[in-house]
């Protein structure tokens, strides 16, 4: 397993320039078909925010949530969620989307899932701007903690790269897995406190513990700290998160290392 991890890391480092260039090309590909191009990312996100805010408001009123202004509460959850969700839904199809590259080029195949993650991250950086605008307007800019934000942002990136290394080959190999996976992804949205918070279920500590096993919960709650609460990461929870990340990397790089010789045959 160590051999696989070393190989994958080496291949990534050796090709980092190429990966970034291709990631930018792939990002441009998605937006080049429309005349508004990259602005659709902005517009799409604004519509998204508006929908979530409206329905949250209709369901529970516009009051503060866990002490935070509702717009900041939603933004701090949605910002990381947009990254995570894009990768869960479309980044995970990395191998399938790049079939042509795998079957016709001598290419460092283990880097393909990461290229998709990079591409999504670059695209989504624009949406951070919207969140920053919102928190400035409602006067929450003073609470924004840059260090915490950077920590959780980097943690999110590192975890999602590992996640994609593991999940994208599984999806490419098996339609059964694909079906199972698609049904579970919706669960993630509701289980993760993106538009709700754990304070509603304070009386069910066991449920909270189970829900916290979801690594995305660590990230979302962390972003809330970065945007408002300012609490430093809980040690125990952080150890859990990073251990899980390491496990994901071991299995993900093993899968990539093993399958890289066979993708061209299997798909």
């Amino acid at each position, binding site marked *: 397993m160590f051999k696989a991890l070393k190989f994958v890391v080496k291949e990534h480092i050796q090709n980092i320039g190429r990966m970034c260039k291709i990631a930018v090309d792939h990002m441009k590909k998605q937006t080049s078909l429309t005349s508004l191009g990259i602005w659709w990312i902005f517009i799409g996100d604004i519509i998204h925010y508006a929908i979530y805010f409206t329905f949250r408001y209709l369901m529970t009123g516009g009051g503060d949530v866990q002490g935070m202004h509702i717009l900041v509460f939603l933004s701090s959850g949605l910002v990381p969620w947009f990254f995570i969700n894009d990768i869960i839904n479309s980044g995970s199809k990395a191998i399938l989307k790049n079939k042509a*590259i795998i*079957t016709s*080029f*001598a290419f460092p195949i283990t880097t393909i899932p990461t290229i998709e993650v990079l591409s999504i991250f670059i695209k989504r950086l624009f949406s951070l701007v919207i969140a920053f605008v919102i928190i400035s307007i409602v006067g929450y800019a003073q609470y924004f903690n840059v260090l915490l934000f950077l920590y959780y942002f980097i943690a999110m990136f590192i975890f999602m790269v590992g996640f994609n290394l593991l999940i994208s080959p599984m999806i490419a*190999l098996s339609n059964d*897995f694909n079906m199972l996976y698609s049904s579970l992804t919706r669960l993630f949205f509701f289980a993760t406190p993106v538009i709700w918070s754990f304070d509603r279920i304070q009386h069910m500590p066991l449920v909270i513990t189970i829900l916290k096993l979801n690594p995305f919960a660590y990230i979302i709650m962390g972003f809330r700290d970065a945007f408002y609460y300012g609490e430093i990461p809980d040690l125990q929870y952080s150890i859990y998160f990073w251990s899980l990340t390491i496990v994901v990397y071991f*299995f993900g790089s093993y899968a990539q290392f093993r399958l890289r010789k066979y993708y061209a045959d299997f798909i």
Partner: protein
Amino acid sequence: MENAIEIINLKKYYYLFDKEYKKIIWTFTKRGSTGKKKVLDNINITVKKGEIVGVIGKNGTGKSTLMKIVAGITFPTGGEVRVDGTIGSLINLNAGFFPDYTGRKNIYYKASLMGVPKEEIDKSIDKMEEFADIGQYFDMPIKMYSSGMRARVGFALAIFSNPDILIIDEVFAVGDKDFRQKSYKKTKEMFESGKSILFSSHSDDQIRSFCDRVIYIKGGKIVFDGHVEEGLKIYNGQK
């Protein structure tokens, strides 16, 4: 290394699975495969520097798989491939093209997929444009091109990136007459320029005019390796 290509005891099997999900189990436990299909067996080939070797055989006998393995696109199950020099592959000229990008942009994009540095492309982009000979279309989306135009652009990139070794897999079967004439001429230049070439074709004439020697592959095995006329006779005799 004095040879351009050395293929030693090459084997290629495809693993078979009766249920799809077993591939996932196999990934992590190496178990779950129901068998292997032999595609190439005991292949030993040496291509000297500057030599042009033809590869003939019916479709489905492993020719393309062999070419892809030497080009580094897929991997052997056993055995070894040693290569001395940069490799250019003319295997699937249309691969890696993005329909909405222009011909020019596609060349840069495909070059980054091939690992060719941008500076190399900058040096030769004008020659590629000249070779492709598609006028103003070069800066229009590639989805507007005919198949011949597309093939010319793909060919231009592969040729002008100036590799030491060329792997050519029946590339002259695609494209229109214009493409075939143009690329034929250019390939002839390349064939005479001292590059080492592995060339697979269904056309006896092409094999005769270009190759120093021919290899006949049948059922994943080498059945003949030697003189062009003799090889072609055996191949045609068996058709």
